[in-house]
């Protein structure tokens, strides 16, 4: 045989019009032949040209931006930053709410070999300074004057910054600062640099290697200072590959982007996955207008955190309670018809004709309208992750005809590790490992993951990186759980959070906490008891639902503190706690609880960006409440 015949083409498979390796999880990970994010980006922009990539509201009207726009602006951004001195392997921090420029910058920075790192807009000036310094950022992108002020406050602490680029110049026309420049100025520099070296941009793209770090994501860290997780091109390509196998997307799909893009979940779903699937991403105007934007966009797929799904459920429940008796009756019947159908669907069985007919009728009469009102009439699949969700809530969504599935992932797994899918779903579990990824349960119960999506390590911290991996190279997720014989994984808690009571009992608080959270009246809870004689809880109530409860029961209250102080509210929560207690063993009983009577916002350091309570900060800040209980 001729030794010089080229190697046979790697076997490939086409999923919804996109070509992937036939065997997921093998190197090189390619999507339509590209093995880096920026390579795929170039290919898509060239092929899709004038088709819409993004939509954003401008003065109340949805406007479109094409893949051409995506390409040109990313090119100017990349060339501009390069001209200003950005070198390959250097970091650029982005401090902005979601908007099209976020995506343009992400790809523009990566195209010239930079590393994009997102900063939450709710972070304070000192947190910003920490992130900029820790990542050794060369440039900082700020959205507007509010975010710019954070830089100005902490400017002296960030000497390494070469420049700050401001996206929105409103109110800043008289700004005169040697390090600041406006987006238009950067475009201009980029345009000139591009004219001078027309081949440079694509040459930079060609230099990217799958093993290069493409983005840095700081983990919110419920403990300690945030750490920067390095994700490579290959990590993201592997996540895209895994997503494509389990979560089908089509080029006609519309999506809504509203969770922070600094978080791996939204970044995957709204920037990287659409690069492969070619779908259109609509940016919500603001976190407050998500529900209205959802009605307008009516997305085909929608991924959110449990809090958002809970909010939508609460809204419907409240609307229903205030409807006419006929309306309530009809909704009740429709929901029961939906439940009957959902039970069959969730067991994976065919729906009997009688049940299907009943569903058809009530769907026509009630549920279809409800879905249209919620902006879910086209929704093929809802996704939830980043925190545990109540099984009842999942079933409710199935009952109204929205297939909602839970998945699991973390920054260190490029956002995806296990998923349920509408076809292959076991409620209460986080699903099965995604294509190309292996999951095992260690002897101590820890969930461990291996795959090409697993991150390269923590930025400049070999020590922390080493701690995160087992000797044989599996990622230690820090979550404890179990896997059933069909491969579905269930999470029971966090290893670090294990409480050892004074009596020597090991308790995983997350299990109790998530049971508490499933109550509509409790938005989050922290179990206390390490080294103590018994367990107690600090509870954050769900403002909207508890206010509604108080209003219906004629419980007077004026502000949030007096709401928390009302006896009826305490009794209500006590009943919820008692209900949870019944499900747990004697040593795991919550003996006492206190309500956190300040309304926490995303700016408060006790909350993570996804509005979860941070255990150690909560314990520190509300020590007086804890002391009262012991």
């Amino acid at each position, binding site marked *: 045989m001729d030794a010089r015949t080229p190697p046979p083409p790697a076997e490939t498979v086409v999923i919804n019009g996109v070509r992937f390796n036939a065997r997921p999880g093998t190197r090189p990970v390619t999507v339509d032949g590209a093995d880096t994010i920026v390579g795929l980006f170039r290919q898509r922009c060239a092929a899709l040209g004038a088709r819409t990539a993004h939509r954003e509201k401008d003065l109340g009207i949805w406007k479109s931006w094409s893949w051409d726009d995506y390409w040109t602006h990313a090119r100017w951004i990349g060339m501009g930053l390069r001209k200003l001195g950005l070198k390959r392997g250097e970091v650029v921090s982005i401090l902005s709410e979601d908007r099209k420029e976020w995506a343009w910058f992400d790809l523009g920075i990566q195209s010239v070999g930079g590393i994009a790192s997102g900063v939450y807009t709710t972070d304070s000036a000192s947190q910003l300074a920490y992130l900029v310094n820790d990542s050794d950022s060369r440039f900082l992108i700020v959205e*507007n*004057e*509010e975010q710019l*002020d954070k830089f*100005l*406050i902490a400017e002296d602490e960030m000497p390494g910054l070469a420049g700050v680029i401001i996206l929105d110049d*409103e*109110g800043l026309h*008289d*700004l005169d600062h040697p390090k600041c420049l406006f987006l238009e100025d950067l475009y201009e520099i980029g345009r000139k640099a591009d004219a001078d070296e027309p081949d440079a941009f694509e040459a930079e793209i060609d230099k990217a290697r799958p093993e290069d770090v493409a983005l840095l994501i700081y983990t919110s860290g419920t403990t300690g200072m945030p750490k920067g997780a390095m994700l490579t091109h290959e990590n993201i390509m592997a996540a895209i590959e895994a997503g494509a196998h389990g979560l089908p997307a089509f080029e006609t799909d519309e999506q809504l982007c509203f969770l922070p893009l600094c978080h791996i979940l939204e970044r995957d779903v709204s920037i990287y996955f659409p690069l492969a699937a070619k779908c259109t991403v609509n940016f919500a105007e603001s976190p407050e207008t998500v529900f209205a934007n959802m009605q307008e966009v009516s997305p085909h797929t929608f991924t959110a955190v449990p809090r958002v799904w809970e909010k939508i459920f609460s809204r419907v429940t409240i609307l229903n309670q205030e409807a006419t008796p006929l309306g309530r009756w009809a909704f009740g019947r429709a929901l029961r018809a939906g439940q009957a159908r959902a039970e069959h669907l969730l067991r994976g069985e065919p729906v009997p004709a009688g049940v299907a007919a009943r569903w058809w009728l009530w769907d026509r009469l009630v549920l279809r309208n409800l879905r249209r009102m919620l902006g879910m009439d086209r929704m093929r699949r809802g996704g939830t992750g980043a925190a545990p969700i109540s099984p009842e809530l999942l079933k409710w969504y199935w009952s109204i005809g929205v297939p909602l599935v839970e998945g699991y992932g973390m920054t260190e797994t490029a956002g995806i590790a296990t998923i349920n899918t509408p076809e292959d779903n076991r409620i209460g579990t986080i699903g099965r490992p995604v294509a190309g990824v292996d999951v095992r349960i260690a002897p101590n119960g820890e969930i461990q993951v291996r795959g090409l999506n697993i991150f390269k390590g923590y930025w400049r911290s070999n020590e922390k990186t080493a701690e995160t991996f087992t000797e044989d190279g599996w990622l230690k997720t820090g979550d404890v759980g179990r896997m059933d014989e069909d491969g579905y994984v269930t999470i029971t808690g966090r290893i670090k959070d294990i409480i050892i009571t004074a009596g020597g009992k090991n308790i995983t608080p997350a299990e109790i906490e998530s049971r508490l959270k499933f109550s509509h009246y409790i938005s989050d809870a922290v179990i206390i008891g390490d080294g103590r004689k018994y367990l107690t809880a600090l509870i954050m109530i769900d403002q909207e639902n508890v*206010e509604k409860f*108080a*209003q219906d029961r*004629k*419980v*007077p*209250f*004026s*502000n*949030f503190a*007096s709401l928390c102080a009302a006896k009826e509210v305490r009794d209500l929560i006590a009943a919820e706690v008692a209900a949870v207690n019944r499900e747990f063993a004697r040593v795991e009983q919550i003996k006492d609880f206190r309500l956190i009577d*300040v*309304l926490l*916002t995303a*700016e408060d350091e006790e909350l993570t960006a996804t509005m979860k309570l941070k255990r150690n900060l909560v314990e520190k800040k509300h020590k007086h409440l804890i002391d009262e209980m012991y």
Partner: protein
Amino acid sequence: MSDALLKVRNIESFYGPIMAIRGVSLDVHEGQIVSILGANGAGKTTLMKTISGVMDPEKGQIVFDGREIQGQEPHRVVQAGIVHVPEGREVFPLLTVDENLTLGAYTDIDRTRINRHRELVFDYFPVLGERRNQEAGTLSGGQQQMLAIGRGLMGNPRIMLLDEPSLGLSPILVQEIFGILKRLNAEQGVTMMLVEQNASAALELADHGYVMEVGRIVMDGPADELMQSEDIRNFYLGVQEAGVRESRRWKRKKTWR
């Protein structure tokens, strides 16, 4: 503290399908001045109208001096001792000052008491005495406001609901009227509930304050404490936080703590 003179409990009021008040509870104690602050459309006036019986609440109780009065006809509420001085004064322009005052005593039949109240009004608002035979429509805005308050006093109220007494008045007049209100409270023991946009004037006058936003109370406390609150200072008293730049336009988010 003793039981409140006026207790509002979980009131909900609607304009057709629109819920203007979404569950408000508050207390006014005898002899106190309570201020309700809030932006346009927060539901302050609706709350006043609901208390005085012009509007009926969908839900909730209003307890005045131990008796539930929600949903009663306005004249019964006046007889019970609650007088509403409406927004925009609403004096009868073609009647004289005297006649306007007489109308304020509509629920009273005791002539000597009416005359005593009239003297009291002239005592506090001498300018009304000087112009007692003049048509009310010819008075200045400040004088009309005084007349509206005076007309309210004629009903011998146990509590006066004052809806934006500072509306459209010059700062000096606001000071004058608020000074008189303070004296009425101190000397005559008139309990007052005051709705205001002019937050600094209202808080200086009041013992206790409530802040309303979109139909709910978001914050309450003693007036001097409210004046120290960062949110109140930023959003109601117009105190600009010292920023890093001079021309700062953005405002921090409200937390109501």
